[in-house]
């Protein structure tokens, strides 16, 4: 039951605003309470994991509500709850509050659902459902003039691959059905089946394309600048902090273990894509004039590194990937929210027009400074631990990849320091429309972020030791793939009488 609790709490939190009409304060408070409760449930879940539930849903289709809380998912669930809490605390929507807070919590609930599901179809349910709140939040609560176009772009990029994902999932189940004995979408049962390479390959491509769009990874990132740029900073924080993790998580949980041979086959190509992502993101982040875009493209680069760690296909890389996903979630959410406050206070997000925030609001600048340091990978803070582990894993697979990736890490120090300098320091004294004051709630919410940055920085083993068993079992699957004989030959041309 503990597994379901964050999911249930967030769903209830999403439904509650519909009954509260236009009372903005009450709605915000209710959302805060529900996301805080979900966070508590998720933290208790980390202590109690691993746990799982299996509720029958549609037995005729091998469909059961299988949710699992293990080393891979528990930190991401907690991250989602924490991010939601922060996003709600940093929002003050008064015009149309019911829709806004409801959609934010719905997005969180569906993301938690994708992290927990171990049934492919249940996963798909949450995966598809997750698109809708994103679409509506970008489209109807957007900031920029082009928010509708940005929403449409987000929709197209998310939906088209995920429609084909359904074909891939069903084909996988149908192909595995003879070996299992009945149609099943359960991960445990599907993992035991070894499909022939020809079937694996195209299923893997459909899986990978769909998951990589969500991260996003170059060249499937075209929706990202519009969606992150046209939406509110709080929504961008949600997209970057939580939604991007679902894509990486799905790759680790489903695509690579289920289709190990295809994964090995495509790994080099994916690594090249990851490297391009890392360098391209870093380059744009270094040169962009728009502060929020710097954060957005830094995400492209950092998550590209995580992707590279996954593609390295060893336990160390996977371990580092999960750790770094958690880390990125923590500092990306904080960065988007803090910079969002600067944007709102200054009325602009062009770096050239910002500056001197540190002199006006020292406490605020202090939070921003720690976050930036964590993001650029200062030893002792969480970003460093994750990157270090990732690079170790990548080294084991290929030294060339690792050296290129290290270059990107150096870049990241450069663009984050530039972001901080142009915002907080510098000669230009920005004229503030609104004071940059952290309310008690916002302050209270930021504290755990800073604590986590420091704590994970000093004791990353608290996370990695729990991820390790899962990472090792996935890595073993990849290694075993080459040894066993495939069964369940499935091709389109066959057996058409």
């Amino acid at each position: 039951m503990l597994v379901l609790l964050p999911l249930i709490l967030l769903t209830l939190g999403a439904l509650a605003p519909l009954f509260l009409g236009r009372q903005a304060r009450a709605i915000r408070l209710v959302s805060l309470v529900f996301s805080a409760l979900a966070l508590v449930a998720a933290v208790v879940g980390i202590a109690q994991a691993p746990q799982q539930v299996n509720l029958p849903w549609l037995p005729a289709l091998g469909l059961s509500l299988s949710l699992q809380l293990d080393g891979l998912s528990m930190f991401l669930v907690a991250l989602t709850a924490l991010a939601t809490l922060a996003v709600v605390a940093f929002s003050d929507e008064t015009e149309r509050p019911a829709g806004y807070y409801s959609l934010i919590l719905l997005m969180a609930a569906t993301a938690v659902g994708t992290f927990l599901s171990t049934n492919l179809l249940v996963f798909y349910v949450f995966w598809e459902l997750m698109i809708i709140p994103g679409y509506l939040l970008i489209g109807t609560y957007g900031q920029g003039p082009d928010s509708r176009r940005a929403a449409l772009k987000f929709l197209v990029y998310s939906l088209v691959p995920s429609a084909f994902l359904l074909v891939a999932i069903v084909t996988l189940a149908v192909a595995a059905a003879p070996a299992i004995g009945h149609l099943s979408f359960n991960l445990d049962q599907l993992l035991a089946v070894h499909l022939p390479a020809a079937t694996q390959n195209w299923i893997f491509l459909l899986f990978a394309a769909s998951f990589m769009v969500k991260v996003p990874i170059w060249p499937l990132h075209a929706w990202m600048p519009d969606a992150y740029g046209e939406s509110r900073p709080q929504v961008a924080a949600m997209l970057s902090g939580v939604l991007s993790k679902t894509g990486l998580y799905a790759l680790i949980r489903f695509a690579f273990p289920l289709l190990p041979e295809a994964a090995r086959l495509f790994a080099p190509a994916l690594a090249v894509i990851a490297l391009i992502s890392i360098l391209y993101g870093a380059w744009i982040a270094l040169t962009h004039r728009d502060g929020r875009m710097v954060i957005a493209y830094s995400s492209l680069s950092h998550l590209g590194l995580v992707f590279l760690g996954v593609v390295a296909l060893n336990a160390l890389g996977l371990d580092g990937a999960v750790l770094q996903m958690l880390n990125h979630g923590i500092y990306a959410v904080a960065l988007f929210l803090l910079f969002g406050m600067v944007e709102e206070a200054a009325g602009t997000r062009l770096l050239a027009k910002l500056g001197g925030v540190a002199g006006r609001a020292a406490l605020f600048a202090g939070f921003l400074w720690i976050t930036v340091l964590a993001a650029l990978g200062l030893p002792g803070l969480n970003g460093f631990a994750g990157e270090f582990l990732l690079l170790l894993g990548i080294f084991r697979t290929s030294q060339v990849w690792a050296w290129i990736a290290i270059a990107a890490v150096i870049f990241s120090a450069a663009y984050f320091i530039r972001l901080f300098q142009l915002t907080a320091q510098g000669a230009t004294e920005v004229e503030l429309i609104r004071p940059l004051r952290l309310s008690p709630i916002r302050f209270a919410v930021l504290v755990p972020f800073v604590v986590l940055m420091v704590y994970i920085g000093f004791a990353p083993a608290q996370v990695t030791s729990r991820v390790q068993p899962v990472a090792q079992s996935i890595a073993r699957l990849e290694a075993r793939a080459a040894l066993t004989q495939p069964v369940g030959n499935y091709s389109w041309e066959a057996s058409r009488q």
Partner: protein
Amino acid sequence: MNLPLIVPPQVAFSLISPDLALLVTSVVILAVALFLAPEQGIRWLAWLAAAGILVAAGSDVILLLGSQLPATTFSGSLVMDPLAEVLDLVILAAALLAVLLAANRPEASPDYLALTLWSAIGMMVLVSAHDLIVLFLAVEVLSLPLYILCAFRPDRPTSLEAAVKYFLLGAFSSGFLLYGLALLFGVSGGTNLTQVAAALATVGSASLFGHGAIGTALIAEVGIGLVVVGLGFKLAAVPFHQWVPDVYEGAPTSVVTFMSVGTKVAAFGVLARLVDTVFVGSAVDWQGLLSALAVATILAGAVLAIPQQNFKRLLGYSGILNAGYLVAVLVVGSQAATAAGVYFLVTYALMNLGAFAVISAVSGGEMEGVMIRRYRGLFYQQPWTAVAMAVFLLSLASIPPLAGFFGKLFILQALISGHQLVLALTVVAGTAITLIVYGRPLLAMFSPPDPDSPPLPKMPMAVATAIGCLAVAVVAVGLVPGAIVGLVHGVSQIGPLSGISGR
């Protein structure tokens, strides 16, 4: 001179009790209307029609739960099996909603109610038809009232335009259907589907009536092709799809509500029966034809829907698209595939009826009310109407876990199990495009409201109840798909749904 003995056909009236209930109701309505002043008492007549439909549905359920099925009657020209009864229920649901929607509208009149019931009878007979003549007759009984119903708002030029277009294309396509039926008769020498199936199973290179140039196989193939194309008109499939958007836009919303579901159900039912009893065993390549039709229909419906600004037109193209899915699933030709199609139809009926009910309620009979821009800010004016509409649209776009998703899932599974890659990919491509199509009204509903737009009309209680029930049903069927699988499981006569589970 010896007169041949006339043997009266064996008729089991209990088997056609739903049809009889509608017939009696319609006659009673017309008779009572003679004694009522016009404009007066129409609501009572509408309730009477609704009661008659409920009685028909009740006797349908009794048949479904009883042990009489499957059975044939009228000398084997009508088949009453679970497939027919389940589809009958869907048709009756559509008729019920049409009557409820029309009750407060200018188009409401005794003739309107009677025509709707007659058309429903035609649809119900069509899904039971097991004879070429009955099949043709049922198509006509179904269509003729609809031609009139389309023209039921003669004050609006669009209504007449819709009627003319529907009538001309309908009669045109009936010609094709009729020619196809005649050719099937010519190959087999009998009109019962059993005879036709037996003849088609043996067609080969043998020439027709000793004439060298024309082979029976060719005649059979042309016949099947013409029948499929002719029925495709009712299903709203390419190439006879052009009427759909115009009729959906021009005809009264209550009529469109009824025909969008009813004709689709009826045409799918008869096509499924033909596939199951005649095509599958025949020596004719029917799969290629259906595949081509399905691909063309799906792509046309999806792509043409993108630029639509009128909600009814948009749903018209969506109807074409969904017709494509139904044709696609028939290609597989297995009983599991038919069951998947039935499941899809049931879910489609729920969400499509719901969407039309909302359109009818929001427009209040005005032409401007059916434009998508009218839906801006609906969530902030009538939040629950907007939530219900969002449920219907998301379900139509097959977003899980709503009813439409499982309908699509079963279709995909049937196609993939039947090794139909191209069709499976076309189906998901269509799905991907539709969400983009439905995304626009969805966004509009949750956008800030337009300050200039007039206030929304008040919603009649019956319509609000219907919308609420349909929305709950769409969600419930999605969350507990097992419940309706159990209902459709009764379709085991033509396709056991257990077959859906992969083997």
